[in-house]
């Protein structure tokens, strides 16, 4: 069961803060992050990679993206 972070409509650096908080909380597994700008997509992906997570998938959803990050 993956957790969902809804960062749509939030400006810098909120999407990254929310993602980092979730990463700290769950430690490993799968997190889905919803964002609505390309900037947030890049920032969230960069932050996840820096924490040792892997970008499993980035798919367009609505006007933004659904980013799935994983860590075993």
């Amino acid at each position, binding site marked *: 069961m993956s957790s969902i972070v*809804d960062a*749509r*409509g*939030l*400006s*810098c*650096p*909120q999407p*990254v*803060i*929310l993602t*980092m908080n979730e990463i700290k909380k769950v430690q490993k597994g799968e997190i889905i992050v919803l964002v*609505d*700008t*390309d*900037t947030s*997509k*890049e*920032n969230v*992906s*960069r*932050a996840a990679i*820096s924490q040792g997570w892997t*970008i499993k*998938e*980035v*798919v*367009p959803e609505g*006007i933004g*993206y659904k980013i799935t990050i994983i860590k075993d």
Partner: protein
Amino acid sequence: MSKKVFTFFATRWGIITVGAVIGILASVLQKLGNPPNMGVCVACFERDIAGALGLHRAEVVQYMRPEIIGFVLGAMIAAYIFKEFRARAGSAPIARFILGVFAMIGGLVFLGCPWRAALRLVGGDGNAIFGLLGLITGIWIGTLFLKNGYNLGRSQPTHTTVGWLMPLTMLGFLVLMLIFPQIAGQDKNGVLFYSVKGPGSMHAPLIASLVIGLIIGFIAQRSRFCTMGAIRDFILFRQIHLLLGFISLAVFAFLTNLILGQFNPGFVKQPVAHTIGLWNFGGMLLAGLAFALAGGCPGRQLFLAGEGDGDAAVFVFGMIVGAGISHNFGLASSPNGVGPYGIPAVIIGILVCLFIGFTMRKQLS
């Protein structure tokens, strides 16, 4: 199908390249006629725009700076080409306006924005050190609020028109400049004010300013270049991505200054600067805190406004109005020192920012 996550501009070399290009072009703009250590300064140039429009009547700082127009339109062109234009608004616009006003008030006590703080330093102006330390301190205070849940709330997708209003305003400014061009020796043509002396009278040719503005707007939109974010992300996450861009700007502007003979080290008699360290520090502390609470440096706010962010546009208008307030009420500094009401204005600004920071803490589900 997954869209590629990182384009070249989102890579480390991408942001370093963008910083380098901005740094070089800033020094070149100075060579082409812009004021010393002010090849590009977002706060100063928005202040000059406020003067050109008559929102203040400080006669030495009146010019419709085409660089600012180019920043917004260049970012808009990039956003449309790469399908990133998204009209959005509604994230505490009045708070952003007030933050814009005080960001400008603080910036004009120091006499510059983060971009110019770096450009002043690499032009040899030692007073910029106090400004940069103030900037870092202000952003650090902002990160404390961010860590404790401060946020301005969500924006909403909205009519495309909303995203077009700032670019159209800039286009309107450009049209005004073409209809009412500067006439040598005259301080006014039609509805636009011009400076016959002082920094407002010093400018590169319109076409050079506009083209360089468009280039910077384009690449900054692609790379998300942000000088406040550079310091904030390092403090918050120990992430150096944006910081590399900011450092690159300074390094390449420095090298270009050396080549062009624009490096003059010292503290006294530096161009468009004063030597009161405490208020160079205090002014930029206020500006840095306001930028951090508003989520972007003044340049970044222009690029965001170009890609459809109506809230960033409100911040920009706040800064332009703030420039009017600064010069009409004696808050802005000059080479002679801080203005008569500059110090109380900075203190009030810091209190307003603290009020916003402490009270806007909505839990995000």
